[in-house]
């Protein structure tokens, strides 16, 4: 028998890894080559990519089909406004603080909603989000039901001048996208990630092979809750204005995100990234069509679900057996094939 080794690298993943550095540098340099509107759009793309990656970890891997992730986006927005405006905390300190608070709040929420199964779980997540929305609508210090704006002094304090502020908003969005995608890749490569991938495929077998399913899902829910809160902070830092309806919008922060993950390919890392790019390509080309645009989105979703039920990336991966992010462990040195 020839010597066998186990590796994660594939030729494609090596190429991508080499390309990653120049791409990242180009993206960091975006404020020098991209226009103001483009920079804003790119920031939005980065934040949606983060939301989609997080929702995919939750639903695609842990099987926790939440339709209430707007709870954490809104929580993030409100926490950021509250920490900076009411508590006077430095915005750059408020960001990690809000993420931490989001995770801490997600823990008891998980204990509560994990008692629900299937459709009841989904409904439970939505009810939770509504509870969050109604609660924040009561806080008169944050504008109650009509919301409030981020005070100009805080915005000014983050960077000097408008251009610098816009660059800063982009870098933060890019940084969070890199953090979220990087964290999910590392997580899925870890022991916990192996357990989670097994759970994704077969809970009965996972349980019988020593995996504590509740614990795995709990960890995922709490981490995703914290990171979604962080993304929420940045979304409303970009918007500069918050209201309960915008903050806890099920359309903006969950429905579109589910669309992205489903067309991109649920249960893969690449899926949400590709889905986000497709979503924005559709949105930018068809935005002036009004409601027709929503109908077109629906059509795209239906066609993809019929023709490629595992999404665009799932289709490509099954067809060409490729993987951009090296997760799977391959045995090399086998006599046949390999």
């Amino acid at each position, binding site marked *: 028998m020839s010597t066998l080794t186990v590796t994660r690298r594939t030729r494609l993943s090596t190429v991508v890894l080499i390309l990653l550095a120049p791409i990242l540098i180009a993206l960091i340099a975006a404020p020098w080559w991209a226009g103001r509107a483009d920079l804003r759009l790119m920031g939005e793309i980065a934040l949606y990519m983060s939301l989609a990656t997080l929702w995919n970890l939750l639903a695609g891997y842990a099987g926790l089909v939440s339709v209430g992730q707007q709870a954490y986006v809104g929580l993030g927005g409100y926490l950021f406004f509250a920490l900076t405006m009411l508590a006077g905390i430095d915005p750059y300190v408020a960001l990690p603080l809000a993420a931490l608070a989001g995770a801490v709040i997600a823990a008891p929420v998980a204990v509560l909603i994990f008692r629900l199964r299937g459709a009841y779980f989904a409904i439970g997540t939505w009810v939770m989000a509504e509870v969050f929305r109604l609660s924040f609508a009561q806080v008169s210090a944050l504008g109650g039901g009509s919301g409030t704006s981020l005070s100009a002094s805080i915005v000014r304090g983050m960077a000097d001048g408008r251009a610098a502020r816009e660059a800063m908003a982009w870098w933060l969005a890019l940084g969070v996208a890199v953090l979220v995608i990087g964290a999910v890749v590392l997580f899925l490569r870890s022991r916990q990630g*192996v357990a989670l991938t*097994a759970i994704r495929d077969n809970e009965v077998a996972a349980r*019988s092979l020593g995996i504590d399913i509740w614990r795995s899902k709990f960890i995922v829910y709490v981490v995703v809750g914290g990171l979604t809160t962080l993304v929420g902070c940045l979304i409303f830092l970009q918007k500069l204005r918050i209201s309960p309806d915008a903050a806890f919008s099920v359309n903006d922060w969950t429905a579109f995100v589910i669309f992205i993950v489903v067309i991109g390919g649920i249960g893969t890392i690449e899926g949400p990234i590709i889905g986000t790019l497709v979503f924005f390509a559709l949105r930018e080309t068809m935005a002036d069509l009004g409601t027709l645009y929503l109908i077109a989105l629906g059509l795209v979703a239906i066609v993809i679900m019929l023709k490629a039920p595992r999404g665009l990336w799932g289709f490509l991966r099954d067809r060409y057996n490729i993987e951009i992010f090296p997760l799977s462990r391959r045995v090399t040195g*086998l006599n046949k094939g390999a």
Partner: protein
Amino acid sequence: MSAILELNGVSKAFGAVVVADDQSWTLDKGEAMGVIGPNGAGKTTMFNLVTGNLAADAGVIRLNGETISKWPAARRCRAGIARSFQVPQPFAHMTVFENAYVAATQGAGLSSVQADKLCLDVLERTGLLEKSNVKAGGLTLLERKRLELSRALCAKPSVLLLDEIAGGLTEHECHALIQTIKDVRETGVSIVWIEHVVHALLAVVDRLIVIDFGKKIAEGAPEAIMQSDAVREIYLGLDADA
């Protein structure tokens, strides 16, 4: 010899249907015990109760003298009980190697390096090594059964529960399987094996129990049990539809 696994008065009913009826038996350390009985007798259910895939209504299950009846399935696996499923339960979108790797890292708690080594070793013994990089969802039924055995072995069990893994094999393959299980036993693993392929079972086990309607109706040396009236009755019935 001391008991490694012990069932005492274990019962389970689905509604009015009793699928485990006051079952008591022990498995000694290093022993291999065979389980026979007609389809629907409750053999698989008995495994589900031992592994914690099902909770018993009554009775006590002990592993190395410790009561595990209330433990969740995952903890029982980490404590040393591993099983194969009669109806294979692969991680369909993971490769054969990764399926084994899950068992080695989670069930046996090995480090990545140790797990890689164990998985390659086990897959070679079960004849699945060439299929290492194939997605488990693409395997044939027989290959899936081998994967069940491989995964259970990668969990490094002290008690191995095998549920009908010899059906459908050629004579040559069956012979290889028997040798593999004998080798596993040599390493000190205690085995309970449910099997309809009686000659394979008899080549390995020291003792047989017979289950019918959820009840243990006979227990003893394999030859004596196979000659008994109770078994002849059951197997005459079984042969008719086999």
